[in-house]
């Protein structure tokens, strides 16, 4: 990236697109998200409250209907629910985020950044993923307290696995964000995808190994192994980790490519930001 000297404050000469300026933008984007979380506590609380409420329904409802089944699979439910709630945060930050920015008329402003639209969206995604980890940690703690089952939470294992497990959800978020830029009102599809995520996270990978190549499936499987059985990252089979890395990279890259294609398509059709 090129950078221009930052000296006299005259228009156009104090713009810098180097690493330091990019880091400053990242901090600005992170700060913006934090400000909104703190400034609108009702919104924040209801967002987190919904996560807890749904888990409460699954846990207490399930225990009332089938106590043995719930008791036998509680670790899987906790890890699966953790990954699902984090995936939703990371995914919807992009898909819903792009839709809202288009409605607000700020999408064009993001596009006109000298950092480039792609890097700006990557920054927003990283902020989303960090937020998903924040809520993930809180959700995990609450779930473990509620159920009384304490899982192995080794940060050196859980964080890298979590990032790799979330990457396909981010890729899907990019793809749907791109579709939102091109086709606008596709909120129904956004919601549908959230339920598809449940199926992917619960996919019976051990019975049908080919399913591990689907988004989220392998990440869910390995996170369960690590957290339920206390297996460290380096103790996991290299081939299984290879599949995780390959699916993470592939879905992320494919999603980003779809996003780039869609935004260019939207600009060709003259509908970028039209809402």
């Amino acid at each position, binding site marked *: 990236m*090129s950078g*221009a000297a*930052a*000296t*006299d*404050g*005259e*228009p*156009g000469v*104090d*713009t*810098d*697109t180097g690493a330091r*300026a*990019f880091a*400053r*933008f990242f*901090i*600005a*984007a992170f700060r*913006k998200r934090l*400000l*909104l979380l703190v*400034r*609108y506590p009702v919104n924040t609380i209801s967002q987190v409250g919904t996560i807890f409420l749904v888990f409460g329904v699954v846990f207490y409802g399930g225990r009332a209907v089938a106590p043995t089944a719930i008791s036998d699979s509680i670790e899987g439910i906790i890890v699966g629910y953790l990954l699902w709630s984090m995936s939703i945060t990371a995914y919807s930050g992009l898909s819903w985020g792009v839709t809202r920015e288009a409605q*607000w*008329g*700020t999408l*064009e*402003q*993001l*596009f*006109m*950044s*000298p*950092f*480039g639209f792609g890097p*700006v969206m990557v920054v927003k995604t990283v902020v989303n993923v960090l937020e998903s980890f924040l809520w993930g940690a809180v959700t995990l703690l609450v779930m473990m307290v509620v159920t009384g089952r304490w899982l192995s939470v080794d940060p050196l294992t859980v964080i890298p696995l979590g990032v790799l497990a979330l990457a396909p959800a981010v890729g899907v978020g990019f793809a749907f964000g791109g579709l939102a830029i091109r086709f606008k009102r596709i909120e129904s599809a956004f919601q549908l995808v959230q339920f598809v995520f449940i199926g992917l996270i619960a996919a019976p990978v051990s019975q049908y190994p080919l399913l591990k190549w689907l988004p989220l499936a392998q990440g869910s499987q390995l996170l369960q192994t690590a957290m339920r059985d206390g297996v460290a990252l380096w103790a996991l089979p290299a081939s299984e980790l290879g599949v995780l890395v390959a699916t993470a990279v592939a879905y992320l890259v494919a999603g980003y490519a779809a996003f780039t294609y869609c935004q*260019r398509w939207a*600009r*060709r*059709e*003259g509908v*970028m*930001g039209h809402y």
Partner: protein
Amino acid sequence: MSQTTDRPQRADDDASSTAPPETETVLAVEDLRKTYGDGEDAVTAVDGVSLDVGRGEVVGVLGPNGAGKTTTIKSILGLVVPSSGSVEISGVDADTDPRGVYRHVGAMLEGARNTYWRLTVRENLSYFAALGGNNPDAARERQERLLDQFGLAEKADETVNDLSRGQKQKVSLAATLARGTDVVFLDEPTLGLDVEASLELRRELRRLVEEDDITVVLSSHDMDVVEDVCDRVVILSDGRVIADDAVEELVGVFETQAYRVVVDGQLPGDLRSRLVADYHLENVEVLADRTRFDVTLGDDDGLHAVLGVLDDAGYDLLDVGGLEPDLEDVFLDITGRAGGGDGQ
């Protein structure tokens, strides 16, 4: 015909303000075209627009609805991919280096909030400065100045959502300017503002242009805004540039062409119809003892022809006076002629 009052004073009000030849060109648009669709369904929105804008110039883009103003602006900005043509901003080619272009250009777009309403005014300015890759010290200094200039200093720590419509519009403009680019596009910057807020925004805009030496391309439906703020006007019709001249030049030409004529007696309907058809009479008023009308003519001989017709019909001339047109009259006439109409 209306006259603009309370007009912001320009530094170069006494002189023709077209960019002098030696002025550095900061925006060069060459044969820009945008066609949607293919074959018989193809619609050409921009049809060979070429435009040079010098540093520090304020250029107004006018045109009737569907003339291609917004598509032209968005094509220049890269928000619409043009079918062909080239755009260069501050010497950077938009096609080969789009990111480089965004170091020099910012825009406030029509009908969009352009800012985050849940953030405060100051937070918005900081965020957009960071998005623009600005040096923080220079950005802070500029932000404080913009807050003062737009009368937003007292509201700086309030969320934009809590501000009035006029203040929100000012925040959008300030956020665009906070990026410190040398070229700024403003699409309908005074849309929806009341008269007072619009006048204030125009004054501030003009002052900023003169103090900061920024180049502005402004589109507006409000002729008074363009006449007050712009040095030069580009009129688009059907995706083409049909006029490109200094505001004073355009209005000045019409000063010698528009007349108000008063004749003795009531003109009969058939004569009125003939004069309207042949000489495009406007504002015809038949009073008890006289008839008054306005006429805009291509040359002085035209006036003599009208007066000759009236004389032949036996009507005495009571008064002939030149009318002072405004930009709206010029615009209506030029776009009317381009569209094959009569300028009404």
